Structures are given as structure tokens and as C-alpha cells.
């Protein structure tokens, strides 16, 4: 299992990286936890790899204007264990701790996971629930993309071949907001059969804000807006949560594979949505 030959570049700055991508038919290497296994299987055979692993600007964590800016090359371990992230945006830290295993969390990156857009990856559920924004940079221009427009299809995102993700922008959680990520883990791979990320804020005895992100059920992660609408304004009783959770698979074309049929996935999604909301309340 040896990858096909390729040229290798390791830029030291974002500018060098986007110049390399503008001038070459190249693919970006972050932590490599998804790309390298695909290259070994020769399902991916890039002619040129641009390794972002040594760009210091891409591993920063900063707080600015009520938002947390997480560099795209932060490893899952860094996101899971950063005191600042745990305090300001606990949902993304909790989700990062659920990804893969210890070795994968030491290498795999936030931006790499987002760019790979595996339908069973953990991060996308949290990113949807957090209404994250993704900063994409190419030579001479940059843009911000809402996470809802970012995930296009399974393994497909809005990122152009000459763009890189430099950071993900997440809201700093307001006081009184509870969060939780609940996942049914595929025992061999650690991927989510279904994973649900929830954020709930109570005000005056009622749910004032609810955000629910779901991974594993459909071709892409999504925000379960039907669940959110049923929760907001309710008192968040067990009955309210059960009713709202039943809406999680509305309008979703549920995936089916040898691990879980589409009917089973729908069932698991409802159960885990209720669990995530209860845990967040």
C-alpha cells in the first residue's frame, strides 16, 4: 500500500501555500489522517502535495468580537484540550475529544476534517450547530462561507482547488447556554453512525435558543431547523424534547450501509437528538 509518486512542497506561510496552489495542479495535505489512507489505496493520486503542516499562522486560537477564531491546522487534541476553547466554545472541544483515537487526534486537524467532509465525521455536527463560518483564502482574495453553504455533498465542499481554509470562526457561548455532543460510535472505525450536537439556552423558564447539528444521517451534516423551531419557546419538558427530536430526520435522505440501514439510522438520530438536548439542558 504505497501511494503513487507526487511532488512535495512544504510552504512556511499562507501566501507561499496559495501561490503554490495557484501555479500547480496540487492537493493540500493537512494532518493526512483522511488523505494519506486514500492515497495508499490509490483512491486519490495527486500529482503534487502542498503540506500545510508547518505554517504557524494556521494553529492560532484567538478571541475577537464575540467569536473564537480557530486556525485550520489545530489538531483535534489541541482543540479538545485548549483551556480557552473549553471555556468559550465547549461544544467544539467536547466534539474533538470524540474523534477517532488518541493517535488520530494528535495528527488530524479541524480544517482537514472540514475539507474532507466525510458524512460520518464528528466535527461537522458541531460546526452546523455553531453556525460556523469558514475563511477561505486564495491568491489575491479571500471569502467567508457559512457552514450551511460549505458542505455541498458527501466528500464535497465549496472549497475551490486553489483555496485553503485558514480558520473557522465560532461564536463565544453566551452564559447559560448548555451544549452536548452525543454519538453512536461505529466500534471498528470510531466514526459516527449518527452524531448530534446540541446548544440550548434557557431564559425565563423557556428555551430561548436551540441549535441542533446532525452528522451521519444524510450525505452531509445539517442543522435540524425543524427540531430547533419546536424547542424554542417550549419549556423543554421531556415530552417537548421527544416531540421535537422526532423531527430530526424530516426531509433527509437517510444513508444506508452495512453498519446501519436508513430506518435504523433515522431511529438512532431521534434517540440521540433527544439525548443531546437533554444533556445540554
Amino acid at each position, binding site marked *: *500500500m*504505497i*501511494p*503513487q*509518486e*507526487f*511532488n*512535495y512542497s*512544504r510552504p512556511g506561510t499562507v501566501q507561499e501555500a496559495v501561490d503554490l496552489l495557484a501555479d500547480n495542479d496540487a492537493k493540500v*495535505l493537512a494532518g*493526512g*489522517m483522511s488523505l*494519506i*489512507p486514500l*492515497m*495508499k489505496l490509490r483512491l486519490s493520486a495527486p500529482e503534487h*502535495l502542498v*503540506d500545510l*503542516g508547518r505554517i504557524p499562522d494556521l494553529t492560532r486560537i484567538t478571541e475577537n468580537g464575540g467569536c473564537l477564531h480557530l486556525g485550520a491546522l489545530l489538531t483535534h*487534541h489541541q482543540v479538545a484540550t485548549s483551556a480557552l476553547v473549553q471555556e468559550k466554545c465547549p461544544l467544539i472541544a467536547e466534539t474533538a475529544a470524540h474523534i*477517532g*483515537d*488518541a*493517535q*488520530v487526534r*494528535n*495528527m488530524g486537524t479541524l480544517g482537514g476534517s472540514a475539507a474532507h467532509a466525510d458524512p460520518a465525521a464528528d466535527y461537522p455536527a458541531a460546526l452546523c450547530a455553531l453556525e460556523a463560518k469558514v475563511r477561505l483564502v486564495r491568491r489575491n482574495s479571500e471569502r467567508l462561507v457559512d457552514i450551511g453553504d460549505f458542505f455541498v455533498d458527501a466528500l464535497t465542499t465549496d472549497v475551490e482547488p486553489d483555496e485553503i481554509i485558514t480558520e473557522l470562526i465560532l461564536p463565544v457561548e453566551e452564559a447559560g447556554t448548555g451544549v452536548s455532543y452525543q454519538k453512536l460510535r461505529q466500534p*471498528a*472505525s*470510531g466514526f459516527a453512525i449518527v452524531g448530534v450536537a446540541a446548544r440550548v439556552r434557557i431564559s425565563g423558564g423557556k428555551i430561548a435558543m436551540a441549535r441542533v447539528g446532525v452528522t451521519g444521517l444524510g450525505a452531509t451534516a445539517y442543522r435540524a431547523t425543524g427540531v430547533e423551531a419546536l424547542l424554542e419557546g417550549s419549556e423543554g419538558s421531556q415530552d417537548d424534547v421527544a416531540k421535537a427530536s422526532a423531527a430530526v430526520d424530516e426531509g433527509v435522505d437517510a444513508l444506508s450501509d452495512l453498519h446501519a440501514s436508513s430506518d435504523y439510522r433515522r431511529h438512532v438520530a431521534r434517540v440521540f437528538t433527544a439525548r443531546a438536548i437533554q444533556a445540554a439542558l
Partner: protein
Amino acid sequence: MKTQINVRINGQERTDEVEPRLLLIHYLREVIGLKGPHIGCETSICGACTVALNGKTVKSCALLAVQADGQDIVTVEGLATDGQLHPVQEAFWNEHGLQCGFCTPGMLMTTRELIERNPQPTDEEIRHGLEGNLCRCTGYQHIVNAVKSAAAKVGG
């Protein structure tokens, strides 16, 4: 086209010309001759190839040797010092934390990091921490015992 890499492996500086597609596990086993890290599944599941890169455990079958350029690598061969087994190795020996031994190099490396990050792990934390290492012989109970014993030793 080959690329030059400089690495420190178990305390020794090395410079080699490698193809960018050379995986770290193949570099360690075939170029350096360190046969401690094993190739098990080759799909980054089993963890037999686990080594420490700058002190953090990684699966060397899912890394390119060029990604390790300029970095510090420790393999299972680097655990013992001056003929003295590392406390993690001793604990696996004393607690019978292995049968065939194929997964052991990876188990030892992951355990070293696990108890460094969490000096007093519970059974559940040990099992969670070793999710990336598969053993097909022991049923894991003796491995969990060995990790606990190693933690007690290292923690004093």
C-alpha cells in the same frame, strides 16, 4: 524526485534522501532498520505502528517520512535506557500485558503518552485511551492492569 530529511530517531541524528511518498513506517523499518514498530493493518486502525513524533503518539503508517523532517521520533527501541526497561515495559512484563507481542510496541508507546497526560487513569479512561491499539490475544484485561501498574510506578 527525492527530498532530504533530517530527523532525530531515539536520540540519534539522521539525514536521508527519501521519496516523498515513502511512509514513515517504511522509513523506520527499511531505511533505518528499526523493526520495533510493526505493520499490522496498514489502514491506520490497529496502532501496531505507533511511534512518538515530538512526544505525541502517531500512526507511522499514515504519515509520510517527509512530514517528520526536522522532528524528533521515538520508537519502542528508544524506551529502555542503559539496559533498563522503561517502567511501562516493566509493567507489561510483570502484568502479562502481552501474549504474541505483535501489538506490544504500539501499546507501549500509547501507554507512555496516556499516563503522561493522565497520571491516574481509571479503567474506563485506559480503555478509551487505547482505542487506537488493537490486540487480538489478550482480551485487554491484562493490558489495562499493566497500564494501571505503569501509572502507579511512574507516579511513584
